[in-house]
């Protein structure tokens, strides 16, 4: 999947990873979080080498991470409140009163305190994502990972989530990694952007630098053009000859 990939993600900044579909952005996240292990190469998270971590050490490290999944991945058996409370109940011995306060604070931050008693099935896609965000920050992680956080959000939720990412990062000093291909949104929230293509970083830097980057591939991606180094079409035989052929096979 990757060849010669080298990325440094600085502490306390919002780092965006962008790239065309299928370039392995999600795989990169899975590598960082230790959900899959690399065939070769080295990954260090918070100074720890992911290759040599035992299962227990990995779980200890993961308590310092929060991850927002594309579809929210809420636990469907539990209410919104219990979903956000889940990590607290599993990892701490806090009193019920304290758990309640923490959960309500986080739900208030994503604007869903009133939805605390709803079940995940009663939520819209955007709402589930916001609940999942509340759940991801309830343990006050040092590293927060967002997998495609902007897909399918209405403009209001989008604005709120964008400001939330920025605010969490600035006030709590969280390191954030945002995987996305929404050029516009990323440029408002990220401190630095990496553009992945063909298994390696093709461009990196502040969002403004990327906009003025002269290379073909960056221009194509930022401008959303069909023609360029990244093929829009999946490899296929010649269009004309396939349409004209008498073969009945697809």
């Amino acid at each position, binding site marked *: 999947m990757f060849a010669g990939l080298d990325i440094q993600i600085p502490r306390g900044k919002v780092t965006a990873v962008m790239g065309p579909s299928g370039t392995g952005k999600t795989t990169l996240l899975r590598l960082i*979080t230790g*959900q899959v292990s690399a065939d070769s190469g080295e990954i260090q998270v918070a100074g720890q080498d992911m290759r040599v971590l035992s299962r227990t050490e990995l*779980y*200890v490290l*993961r*308590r310092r*991470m*929060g*991850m927002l*999944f*594309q*579809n929210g*991945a*809420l*636990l*469907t058996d539990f209410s919104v409140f219990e979903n956000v409370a*889940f*990590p607290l109940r*599993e*990892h701490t011995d806090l009193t019920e009163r304290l758990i309640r306060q923490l959960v309500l604070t986080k739900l208030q931050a994503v604007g869903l305190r009133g939805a605390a008693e709803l079940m995940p099935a009663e939520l819209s896609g955007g709402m589930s994502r916001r609940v*999942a965000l509340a*759940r991801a920050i309830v*343990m006050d992680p040092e590293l927060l990972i967002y997998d495609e956080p902007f897909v399918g959000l209405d403009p209001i939720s989008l604005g709120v989530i964008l400001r939330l990412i920025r605010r969490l990062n600035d006030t709590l000093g969280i390191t954030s990694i945002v995987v996305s291909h929404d050029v516009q949104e990323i440029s408002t929230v990220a401190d630095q952007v990496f553009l992945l293509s063909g298994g390696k970083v093709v461009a990196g830097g502040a969002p403004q630098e990327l906009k003025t980057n002269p290379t073909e591939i960056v221009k194509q991606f930022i401008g959303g053009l069909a023609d360029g180094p990244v093929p829009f079409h999946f490899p296929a035989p010649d269009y004309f000859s396939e349409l004209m052929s008498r073969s009945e096979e697809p």
Partner: protein
Amino acid sequence: MIGELWENFTDALEGLGSVVHFLFRLVGNTPRVLLRFSLISQQIFNSGALSLIIIMLSGLFVGMVLGLQGFQLLQRFGSEEALGTAATIGLVKELGPVVTALLFAGRAGTALASELGLMRATDQLSAMEMMAVDPIQRVVVPRFLGGVIAMPLLAGIFSVIGIYGAQLVGVQIMGVDSGSFWSQMRSAVSLSDVTEGIVKSFVFGVACSLIAVYQGYYATPTAEGVGRATTTTVVTSAVVILFLDYLITAAFL
């Protein structure tokens, strides 16, 4: 041809190996889960209590059929009083554990497999891993243990209701003497008969629950994959139950 057969054989062996490996993982995690018994009792409720109605109804009808057929058969030899013994041994040793396990696979096994498969398909298991919660410990082991504990209890209830059903038909309708029905049963049914039933239902409980959670946990995360996991759970469970039943019966002879 022979190569293909050999491949099928090694595939099957590989599958069995990974199921056994999974079982060891579950057992290894069991002590820690036992400390949080509320998780298990919730699952005993889900697998056991919610299967009660179907188990009780089936037990009643199976017992009634036994009472009717047993009576007709025994009447030919003039020994209707042995009806209690015949029905009880049949239920406690054989029908109780086997029919309960088959029903359990259909009712609770499918529910377990599809629940876990859907959790996998909707990233809930990955989300737990990311929250540093081991889904094996938090989700799979409690469901497995819930099934293992529920099965002998259900089989016991099945047999008791079945005996009542046999009594209902044999004594109340066909007119077998109530005293001899019960006293012959009590003198003829030995502890080893009951033990055999308990061993069977325990083994079936392990097998059914293991197959269900294995199929669900490793289901392909698509609608089709979850559907297939559910079907495989029922089919495999049924075959495995009957096969194990033969083995245990032979072992107790």
